[in-house]
């Protein structure tokens, strides 16, 4: 079994917080409303994750608190605005901002999405879907190559939550991601909630979907809550809201993923209707308990 360590550049390793990989423990998204609570209590957590764009400001409280929290915890930087799937080229100015942030905070992990969010100079603030065919494969790989070259480190690519598919796709999503990982050497951020959401939305089997992903490249797992809607046929349509606790179906799928993967750094994501810190900590503890089961059992053969 290959672990995330495989994707480190040569000479990088060791324990957090310094450099190296995220520990195979649970972590939480860092929210400004929790800065004080975290620094006062220093909870036992594997890592924190930030959205890169929120910290692309010059100074003030965000950097003040992140600097302090970073001195106590490993960090994952998760981009939401690089628009790797964009038809236009990558935004080099944004890539420069990202490089500066990564240099400043030396995160153990950097990840982004298989999606696009900018077009024609406009930022649309959502993770928008791509058709999967030779042209988009070539483009996504070229963009990831450029990101990894500019940042001088490998990135993790997150599987998306989507609501529509494209008539001209010639790859399934898992095959497309496998090919991107094979060609670019990037890692996989396995968003188990996105797997559940997309598989319900597109009538797929989530376990089979996970099994078809390039699991050996998995560097991190994300778990989040979703909202329930219905489509025009009255079938369930799940919406990746990050505004609710992790659902039971997703916890079951997570267990199934851990059976295939062994313990992997796992983030509880919550970006909307953010509850008090102890509520999120309890979810992180639940993930940690499942992770420890698999750690004791050892890695799967």
């Amino acid at each position: 079994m290959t672990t995330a360590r495989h994707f480190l550049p040569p000479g990088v390793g060791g324990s957090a917080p310094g450099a190296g990989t995220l520990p195979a423990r649970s972590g939480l998204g860092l929210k400004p409303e929790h800065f004080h609570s975290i620094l006062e209590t220093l909870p036992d957590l594997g890592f924190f994750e930030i959205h890169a764009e929120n910290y692309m400001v010059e100074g003030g409280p965000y950097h003040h608190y992140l600097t302090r929290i970073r001195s106590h915890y490993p960090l994952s930087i998760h981009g939401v605005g690089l628009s790797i799937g964009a038809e236009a080229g990558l935004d080099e100015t944004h890539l420069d901002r990202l490089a500066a942030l990564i240099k400043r905070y030396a995160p153990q992990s950097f990840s982004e999405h298989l999606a696009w969010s900018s077009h024609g100079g406009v930022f649309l603030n959502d993770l928008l879907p791509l058709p999967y065919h030779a042209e988009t494969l070539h483009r996504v790989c070229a963009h990831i190559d450029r990101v990894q070259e500019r940042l001088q480190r490998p990135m993790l690519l997150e599987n998306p939550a989507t609501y529509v598919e494209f008539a001209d796709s010639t790859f399934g999503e898992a095959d497309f991601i496998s090919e991107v990982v094979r060609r670019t050497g990037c890692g996989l951020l396995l968003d188990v909630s996105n797997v559940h959401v997309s598989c319900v939305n597109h009538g797929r089997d989530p376990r089979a979907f996970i099994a078809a992903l390039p699991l050996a490249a998995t560097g991190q797992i994300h778990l989040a809550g979703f909202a329930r809607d219905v489509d025009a046929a009255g079938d369930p349509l799940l919406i990746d809201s990050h505004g609710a606790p992790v659902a039971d179906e997703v916890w079951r799928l997570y267990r199934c993923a851990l059976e295939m993967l062994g313990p992997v750094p796992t983030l509880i994501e919550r970006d909307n209707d953010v509850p008090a810190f102890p509520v999120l900590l309890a979810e992180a503890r639940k993930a940690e308990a499942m992770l420890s089961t698999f750690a004791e059992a050892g890695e799967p053969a």
Partner: protein
Amino acid sequence: MNVQTPFAAALLDPARPCPDGLVTWNGSDPARRFQVYRNNVIVSLVDALADTFAVTQQLVGDEFFRAMARLYACAHPPRSPVLALYGGDFPAFIEGFPPAAGLPYLADVARLEYLRVVAYHAADASPVDPTALAALLTDESALPALRMRLHPALAVLPSDAAVVSLWAAHQGVGALEEVIPEVPETALILRQGLEVDVRQIPAAAGAFIATLGAGLPLGQAAARATALDGGFDLAGALGLLLQSSAITALNPVLPQ
């Protein structure tokens, strides 16, 4: 093939149809599913504006605010993925928004809220040593030519409305019903440590600080302030800057 141009255009214009080329596993109408993306984009941008312009929202109510913010977001979507500073021209949009014409102070309250966010995220900077300033102030002949660099997290907002009192009343300071909106006020917005402070200052002090902040010499700043108000208190205005740790350089080398 260009997929993203029609997709992006339809996201921001509800009058446009769902883009071509979308399919669903169960044959259901993709337009219903496309609506999820449209909703995500608009609602997230309106939410971002509501975070920044909380008092503006309280002044007009949620429904009015969200309708106005939605029109703004579709017409002026962000140009950068860094959303913290989204909405810089929302106050100007409010000023030209006919349904808000009955609240002439609304745009300036929005300006104040935006300047607070700018101050919150502005660069950090250390104040000058007060003794260095005190030494300079003893040489009266050099004073008119003295230039200062002010803290990046400082801004002045002169207004024809009671912008500070209106804002403060929504922070639990003073009663809203006692504010006379037509009374002109000047706001000084400044981050000290980790907190952004908003205070009312005399209009002349505002002109003085804004002129200094633009890099002009003290003599010129004082002249502008005195032209506004013959009783301008120069020592008081300098004392305020000093006490607020707002002066970060004296006679800085100016870029040519």
